[in-house]
């Protein structure tokens, strides 16, 4: 089978290759479990996992909703705070030199170690989980936004000055747009990390969500449930990532990275 050029060919490729890969993986999985490569508690056969997915879909769904809420809350917070921080870092030398190093240093602290501390401080509930998500997701947003704002050629400055634009208007009319592609790159990384953050938060201090479900499944060695929860989590992450990509398409259709697909 060949992937042709042109839109039809590309559409075909877009569907065929991922589907074929997944189908092959499923086949491999089925084969391995039949051959008894690993014991059933370690590698359950696909149909077991499928059974759980179908039978317990409402449990999986409600937990997925809970986790999604945490992800969205934490992600939104990290976007707002992250972009704001980046703008301040870009505009003020003082701010940059005092805050940026602290921010970078804070990334070295393993968030998983902080999670129990958050539970002690904030109890069980939404806050520690959202906070965890926020902390993990905010860094790539700050870095990519700072980068985006900084990579503006000097001629733009000259042009803006010659048109009589002050700092604020130069930023609003020009710099911000120029930075959008970078910002979106950061958002894509951040949303993926937000999923991780939410699950980590749920591991430590929660009674609901996919992370909690994962822990419970491990606790009773219910591997089919574990696999099922992981699959739901993966699908969730992919969907969220795709959403950000869709937003990107809508926000910066003019950028070179968006063109190669439609041209």
């Amino acid at each position, binding site marked *: 089978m060949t992937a042709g050029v042109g839109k039809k060919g590309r559409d075909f490729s877009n569907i065929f290759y991922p589907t074929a890969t997944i189908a092959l993986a499923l086949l491999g999985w089925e084969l391995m479990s039949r051959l008894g490569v690993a014991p059933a508690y370690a590698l359950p056969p696909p149909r077991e996992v499928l059974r759980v997915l179908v039978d317990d879909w409402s449990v999986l769904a409600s937990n997925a909703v809970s986790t999604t809420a945490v992800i969205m809350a934490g992600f939104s917070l990290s976007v707002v705070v992250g972009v704001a921080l980046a703008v301040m870092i870009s505009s003020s030398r003082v701010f940059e030199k005092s805050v940026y190093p602290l921010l970078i240093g804070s990334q070295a602290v393993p968030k998983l170690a902080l999670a129990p501390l958050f539970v002690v401080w904030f109890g069980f509930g939404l806050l520690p989980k959202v906070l965890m998500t926020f902390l993990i997701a905010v860094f790539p947003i700050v870095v990519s936004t700072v980068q985006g704002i900084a990579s503006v050629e000097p001629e733009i400055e000259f*042009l803006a000055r*010659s048109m009589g634009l002050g700092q604020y208007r130069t930023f609003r*009319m020009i710099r911000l747009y*120029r930075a959008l592609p970078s910002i979106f790159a950061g958002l894509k990384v951040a949303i993926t990390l937000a999923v991780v953050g939410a699950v980590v938060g749920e591991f430590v201090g929660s009674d609901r969500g996919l992370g909690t479900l994962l822990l419970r499944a491990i606790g009773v060695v219910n591997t089919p449930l574990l696999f099922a929860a992981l699959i739901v989590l993966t699908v969730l992450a992919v969907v969220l990532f795709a959403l950000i990509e869709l937003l990107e398409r809508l926000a*910066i259709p003019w*950028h070179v990275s968006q063109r190669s697909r439609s041209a």
Partner: protein
Amino acid sequence: MIVGGLVAPTSGEVFVEASPVSEPQTDLGIVFQDPVLLDWRTSIDNVMIQIEARRLDRKIYLARARQLLTSVGLGDFQNKYPFELSGGMRQRVSICRALVHRPRLLLMDEPFGALDALTRDQMNFDLQRMWLQEPITVLLVTHSIAEAVFLSDRIVVMSARPGHVDSIVEVDLPRPREADIQESPEFARYVRDIKHRFTLSGIIRG
């Protein structure tokens, strides 16, 4: 850059219409070697940013912006984005942007340097045509002697670094200057004369 008040002179003073330049000047249009267009705006919107930035009346200047773009042959490309335009087209949009607000002065810093030779020649003609329709003081920086002689009334020949004024040449060729003027003996004489000055000052070593 110095005339535009964007870069401070190392010594001496600059006067624009008898007032000294000490801060970024705004009653002018600038064209850089790079068109510096905003990727997210169409051609017409790129030209109009000059108007928006200065908070002038959009409606009044929109007609002028359209007319300027049409006069450089981009009438059908008003709603195209920069990535859909060639280098020469982008530079033309940049020139329109520099002129839309009717400035006193047009500064051009090697505006055609990044274009291929044929496009460059074409742009020279286009610039002269625009200038004949709307006369304006133009300060053009170029490394092309032929371009300078073709376009200018007065050429300021600069020395090697540190750059200072070497000499001033008045170009007394009739306007409008047609393409074939580049073959005329008078034209050649000017070019030879300036080349000679460069050789004397050491910029061109024969």
